[in-house]
């Protein structure tokens, strides 16, 4: 019996547990796992798998990051253009000259040079990268952060489990899942969490009076339409109120961080967003996406990359060093993703690179990933994958595998269609140590 109590994750003992001990053990906040099983919030059969990562910092290079000018340089090739390759602290792994800081951290990183996607347009590509499903008119698919929080729940019950930081937050979404799995959007990381304190002049008492009125007004409706989407809506109120009162709200404030560290992260939105991501992870937010935009370098690719490359280099190297020195990197998976690559061939008229879905590069670090690894190869011209292609669903399955999300677990959309976390992608298990 005691074994079944703990082993609450497989179907049979789950029922067993429900029958015998749920009511005697409903200390919900202390036992969220068991509580969720008892409340039926987790679909039966969603057996979690062993995990090496608990959290994800997902850095999204919006627009399509040029692989040749970043993490898949082709020194000596005509397609490489003026950007040189430099050696790193891992023999055999080179990065472009824009990444001198990352060159000293590549022992923490697995570079996937053989990414490929089926989408060549931005909106579709971003959607596919975030959800593993192609865009359809009839449904919205949940992104990975929503899946994680839906299947495994937050670590800190008073903070949102899913946060997205940046100007243009396209892709991270709760999809067809209940709206409380949507990311909490943060435009300006330095402004902290907006509207999280009581309006001036509003007393605690009046605030609660208002809330209870809302509840009264809603009561009849909620009773009549007792379904998860309606409940999710009122849950949002509860979550917002508990967030307002949470002592953990300080996680959103960057002021306690030293000026030197804030400088080191880079004093722009992406840099400060990464610092905020670290603070949120520390306080139990499980999935934080930070978006860096402007990677769509059709024109003057090399001038643009000379700006964007070093900026990413500084922020990413600082993030990895900071996470590592605080002991967070072992359980935090850092992902660098983008929707597609850019053409190896340089356009003559605009000195740019266009969209290239056939081959691009992404990075994984921490969270059980073996560092110092280069996975997959592209040809010398960079125009085709020559070894170990990784599809977008495979890439997401790899993240899900690190997090222990069951890849074969089906969630039904409201219209009754079955979906899985990485759409049948297969994890690249070779990347794990």
């Amino acid at each position: 019996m005691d074994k079944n109590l703990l082993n609450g994750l497989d179907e049979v003992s789950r029922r067993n547990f429900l029958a015998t001990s749920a009511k005697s053990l409903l200390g919900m906040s202390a036992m969220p796992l068991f509580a969720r099983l008892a409340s039926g919030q987790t679909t039966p059969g969603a057996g979690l798998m062993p995990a090496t990562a608990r959290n994800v910092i997902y850095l999204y290079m919006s627009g399509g990051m040029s692989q040749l000018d970043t993490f898949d340089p082709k020194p000596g090739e005509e397609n490489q253009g003026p950007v040189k390759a430099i050696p790193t602290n891992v023999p055999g792994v080179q990065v472009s000259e824009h990444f001198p800081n990352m060159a000293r951290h590549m022992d923490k990183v697995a570079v996937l040079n053989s990414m490929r996607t089926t989408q060549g347009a931005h909106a579709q590509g971003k959607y596919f990268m975030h959800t593993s499903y192609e865009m359809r008119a009839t449904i919205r698919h949940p992104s990975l952060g929503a899946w994680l929080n839906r299947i495994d729940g937050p670590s800190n019950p008073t903070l949102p489990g899913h946060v997205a930081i940046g100007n243009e937050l396209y892709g991270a979404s709760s999809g067809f899942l209940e709206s409380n799995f949507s990311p909490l959007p943060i435009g300006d990381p330095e402004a902290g969490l907006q509207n999280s304190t009581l309006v001036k002049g509003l007393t605690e008492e009046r605030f609660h009076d208002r809330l209870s009125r809302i509840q009264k007004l809603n009561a009849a409706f909620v009773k009549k339409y007792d379904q998860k989407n309606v409940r999710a809506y009122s849950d949002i109120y509860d979550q917002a109120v508990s967030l307002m009162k949470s002592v953990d709200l300080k996680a959103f404030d960057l002021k306690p961080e030293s000026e030197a560290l804030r400088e080191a992260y880079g004093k722009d939105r992406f840099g400060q967003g990464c610092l905020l991501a670290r603070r949120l992870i520390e306080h139990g937010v499980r999935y934080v996406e930070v978006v860096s935009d402007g990677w769509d370098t059709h024109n003057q690719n090399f001038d643009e990359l000379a700006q964007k490359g070093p900026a990413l280099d500084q922020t990413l190297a600082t993030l990895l060093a900071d996470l590592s020195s605080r002991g967070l990197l072992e359980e935090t998976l850092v992902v660098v993703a983008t929707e597609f690559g850019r053409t190896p061939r340089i356009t003559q008229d605009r000195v740019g690179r266009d969209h290239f879905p056939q081959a691009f590069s992404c990075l994984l670090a921490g969270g059980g990933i073996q560092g110092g690894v280069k996975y997959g190869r592209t040809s010398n011209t960079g125009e085709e994958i020559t070894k170990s292609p990784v599809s977008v669903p495979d890439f997401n399955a790899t993240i899900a595998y690190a997090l222990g999300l069951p890849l074969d677990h089906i969630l039904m959309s409201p219209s009754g269609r079955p979906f899985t976390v990485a759409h049948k992608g297969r994890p690249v298990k070779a990347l794990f140590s």
Partner: protein
Amino acid sequence: MFTPSRTNTSVALALMLSAFFVFPDRGRAQKIDFRNQVLPILKSRCFECHGAPTKTSAGRKKRVKGGLRLDGKGWILLGGDGGKVLSPQDAKRSSLYTRTVLDREDPDIMPAKGKPLSSKETGLLRQWIEQGADFGAWKGDTGAEIPKASSGKNSTKNDSRELIQLLDKLGAKLPFPEQKALIGARDSMGRIVPAIPGSPLLRVDFISKENKIQDVNVEKLASVKGNITQLGLGRTRITDESLKVIGKMSRLTRLDLNNTEISDAGVAHLSPLTELRYLNLYGTSVTNQGLSALSSLSNLRSLYLFETQVTDEGTKQLQTKLPGLKIHLKPDLSSLPTGDGQGRRRRRR
């Protein structure tokens, strides 16, 4: 037998429970013959999706569902994309069985097509697994591409990830904590979850309201101390007093004490924790002296000492004693921009 309706849940439960507890005669029951009793079920209901890859009429290769093949002993022991499906003697941890007894309308029920297996069929599967999953002489498909499968009992044995193998090993013969002990530990205010699914090992985190967590909270974990393998107390108000309790958690592999009030005197209590792999002391007042207590931790892999009194000099001795240990003393940020124009250039937009 199992209907999705809530009102019938208790009936279903009673039946389910009876399946486990009313027939305890697994030793005496007639031994199930795999080839004659189990294989026909697999053949008729499973092989279509979980057999050798076939070609469709269009000549395209049809993928094996879930990466799982059931048409050979090696394949069955290997499992699918989601891990192992068979734990001999443990039907409850064998998805080969559990997936067949879900609610008829559960999206995860197997077979995915057609009627669910009959209770006689699922009973045979369960009994066969409980009896040790003996395949007899049957080997089935022995494709050369089957990687070597271990015949281990635990569902995680095939996982090559070191951390998971370690937790699997530590939890292997450990009894599950008693319900009473768990309820006592719950009062600690910590978040308690299995360290890996299905394991008797526990992970305990104090991640919310850290500034309210004190030594009394940690004391309440004493009832499950042998089961705790991962403990997060970062930024809480605990003191050296708590480390006395923690020093008795013999299966502890991961301990996070960052930014707490602990000192060298407390760290001394950690020396018996030889299973420790990860120790986070960053932001504490630990000094070079405190490190000497750690030299007995022969399995320690990562030690975090950022923002402590420890110096490079102080780590040297420990490093000699524990050559496999990685000591994180300062962040590797030596290439910070210096304002001489070599650093981050202003972005154009």
